[in-house]
C-alpha cells in the first residue's frame, strides 16, 4: 500500500525536491521560488511604508528641500540608475545560461552583475562622501540617507547572494538546467532591488 501510494504521488509531481530520507519530509514539488516571491511582497511593503512616510514629510513640509539645503546632483545617480537597470538584463543572461546547462556562462554573467552592483555601491559611497549635508542635518537629509542606505543594504545583500551562488558553482553539477533555485531566486531578488531603486530615484531625485 505504501509503495503504491508513494509511486502515485511521485507520478503526480513532475519535479521533485528531495528523496524520502530518514523517514522525514516526503518529496513534493519545489515551492521555494513561490516562497521567495511571497517574501518579496513583505519586502516591498517595508519600502512602501518608508516611501509613504517620505511623501508625507514632504507634502506637510513648508518647503522641500528646506531652505539652504543644496539640491541633489542628478548626473551620478542617473548613471547609477542606468548601471542597475542594465544589470537586470545581464543577470537574466545568467538565468538563460543555466537553463541550457551552461555553468561557465552562469559564472560569467553573475560576475558581470556583481561588477555592476559594486559599481553602483561605489557610486553611492562617492555620492555620500561628497554631499554637503549629513544624516542629522535636517529631516530632508535624514530621509535621503535612510532611504538610499536601506536600499543600498539590499544591493549589498544581492551582491552577497551572487557571490554565494558563484561559490556553489565550484561543484560543477551543483546548478543545472534541472536544479537552479539559487540562480532564479537571486535573479528575482535582484530585479526587485532594481525596481525599488527606480521608484526611489523618481521619488528622491526627480520629484
Amino acid at each position, binding site marked *: 500500500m505504501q509503495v503504491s501510494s508513494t509511486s502515485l504521488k511521485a507520478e503526480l509531481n513532475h519535479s521533485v525536491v528531495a528523496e524520502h530520507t530518514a523517514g*522525514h519530509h516526503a518529496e513534493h514539488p519545489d515551492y521555494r521560488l513561490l516562497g521567495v516571491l511571497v517574501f518579496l511582497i*513583505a519586502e516591498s511593503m517595508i519600502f512602501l511604508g518608508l516611501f509613504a512616510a517620505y511623501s508625507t514629510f514632504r507634502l506637510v513640509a513648508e518647503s522641500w528641500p528646506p531652505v539652504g539645503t543644496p539640491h541633489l546632483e542628478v548626473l551620478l545617480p542617473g548613471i547609477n540608475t542606468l548601471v542597475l537597470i542594465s544589470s537586470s538584463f545581464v543577470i537574466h543572461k545568467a538565468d538563460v545560461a543555466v537553463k541550457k546547462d551552461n555553468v561557465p556562462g552562469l559564472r560569467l554573467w553573475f560576475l558581470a552583475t556583481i561588477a555592476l552592483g559594486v559599481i553602483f555601491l561605489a557610486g553611492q559611497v562617492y555620492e555620500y562622501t561628497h554631499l554637503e549635508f549629513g544624516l542629522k542635518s535636517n529631516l530632508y537629509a535624514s530621509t535621503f540617507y535612510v532611504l538610499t542606505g536601506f536600499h543600498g543594504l539590499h544591493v549589498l545583500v544581492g551582491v552577497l547572494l551572487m557571490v554565494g551562488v558563484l561559490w556553489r558553482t565550484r561543484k560543477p553539477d551543483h546548478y543545472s538546467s534541472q536544479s537552479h533555485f539559487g540562480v532564479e531566486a537571486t535573479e528575482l531578488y535582484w530585479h526587485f532591488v532594481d525596481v525599488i531603486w527606480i521608484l526611489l530615484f523618481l521619488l528622491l531625485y526627480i520629484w
Partner: protein
Amino acid sequence: MTQAQLQESASFAAPSSETGGGNWREYFGFSTDHKVIGIQYLVTTFVFFLIGGVLAEGLRTELATPESDFVSPELYNGLLTVHATVMIFLWIVPGLTGGFGNYLVPLMIGARDMAFPKLNAVAFWMIPPAGILLLSSFFFGAAGAGWTSYPPLSLLDETKIGEAIWIISVLLLGTSSILGAVNFIVTILKMRLPGMGFFQMPLFCWAMLATSALALVATPVLAGALILLSFDLLAGTAFFNPTGGGDPVVYQHMFWFYSHPAVYIMILPAFGLISEILPVHSRKPIFGYAAIALSSCAISFLGLVVWAHHMFTSGTPDWLRMFFMVATMVIAVPTGIKVFSWLATIWGGKLRLNSAMLFAMGFVSMFVVGGLSGIMVAAVPFDIHVHDTYFIVAHLHYVFFGGSVFGIYAALYHWFPKITGHMLNETWGKIHFVLTFIGFNLTFLPMHKLGIEGMPRRIALYDEQFAGLNLVCTIGSYILAVSTIPFVVNAVWSWIKGPKAPDNPWDGLTLEWMTSSPPPVENFRGEPVLVTGPYDYGVGDRSTEVDVPFSDAQDPALAAGPGSALRADPDPSVALHADDRQDPGNSNP
C-alpha cells in the same frame, strides 16, 4: 493491493514507535517537524502568557489603591509596556498562528509538513531570544511608553536602553511572524491534498490564509516605522521629533497600519478555531461555510484600511475621520456574519457541554461584548470622549482575552488529545472555565464604567472616586490568575499520566482526526483521502466503530461510495474505484 484498500486505511493508526513525542530532547532542539514546532510555540508562548500575567498582576496590585504604593511610577510604566508587548507579540500572535497554525494546518490539508520546514524552525527560534531580550530590559530600565511607543514619549533619555531593546525585540518577533506568514501562504495554496479545493478546506485554513496575508502586508510597515524610530532614538535624527522638523503623527500612521491589522491577526485564527470546534461539539454542519470563509477575507482586507480610527484625537482631519469611522463600522458586517453563523450552527444541535465547547461558547459571548464596544468606539464623538480611558482597556481585553484567549483555551481543550495522545480531565476543565469566566468579567466589566466616568489609562495614580471599582477589578484579576492553576496542573498531569486518547475522541471529520493521536512523524500512513466534507455531521448514518462511513447503500449521500456525492469535485486521480480513476499521464484510460 488495490487503491480502494489504500483509501479505507487512511485512518490506520501508526505504531507507537512512529508517533511523535518519542524523544523529549527533540522539543528543545532545531526540529523541522511542524508538530514539534507547533508544540514548541504553544508551550513557549504559554510560558510568556504566564509571565505577562504576572506583570498584569503587578499592575492591578498597584491599582488596588489610588496612591502609588506597590511599585514606582516608572516601574509601573515598564510593567505596562512589557505586559502589553508580551501578551501581543509573544503570546497571542505566535500562540495562535505559530502554535495552532503550525500544528493543525498541515494535518487539516493532508500534508506531511509545512512547505518550508527549516524556515519554520528558524521562525520559531527567533521567539525565545526576542522574549528573553524583552524581559531583560527590566534590568536597564524597561521601555515605558506603552506598547505603542509613540514618540516623543518613547524618545526620553531615561528609558533609552529599554526602548532600544524593545525595538530590537519587536523587530525580531515581526520577522518571525513574516517568515511564518510566507510559509502558511505557500503551504495552504500548494500543499492541499489532491481533491481538496479551496472550498473544501476546513475554515481554520481559510482563517490562517487571511491572517497570513495580513501579517505579510502589514508587519513590514511596522518594521519601517521602528527603523525610523531607532534612528531617532540612537542616531539623533528627527523623523518623529517636531523640534527637528519631524512629525510624530507619521509614526502613528505607520504604527497603526500594522497594529490595527494585528488585531485581526490575533482574532482571525481564533475565529477559525471556533468554527472548527462548534460544529464538532454541536454535531451539526457549520452554518454558512462559504460566508464564514469569505468573511475572513473581507475582514482581512477591511482591516488594512481602518487604522486611523486609533487616531481620532491626533489632529486627523474631519473628512478622514469620517472615512475611517464608516470603514470601521463596515467591519461589523463580516464579523456579524460569523457570529450569526456560529449561533445558527449550535442552534438545535446536540450540544456536548465539555470544556472545549464551554470555552468556545464563552468566546462567542465575550467576543460579542468586545465587538459591540468596538462599534461604540468607532464612532468619532464617542471615541473622543473615551479615548485613552479605561473604556478602551475594557474593550481591548474583551476582544483579546474574551476573544483570542478564550479561543486558545477552547482549542487547547479540543486538540489536547490529538497533540499529546492523552485526555484532559473534564472536571478540572470546567472549574477552569468557571473561574476564568468569573475572573475575567470581574476584572474587565467594571472598566467600562471607569472609562466612561473618565479614568485615564496607563497611569499609576488615579482619583479617589474610582477606588471602589478598581478594587473589584484587582480582586477579579486575582481570580483570573488563580484560574490558570487548574489548567496548568491539569495539562501537565494529563500529559504525563492522563488516560490515553483515542484517535478521534470527539468524532470529528477534519483530517487531523483521521490519524493517530499523536500523529506519526509524517502525519498519515499512506495517502489521506477526503471522503467527506469537513463539517458533514449528520449527513449519512455515522457509525461510532469507524471514524468515517465509506458507503451506505441506504443513504442517498453515501450510496455511491466514498468520495462520490460528498465531494463536489473529486479529483480523478484519486477516485475511489479503480475504474473511475484517470491516470494523470494518460488522458485516455
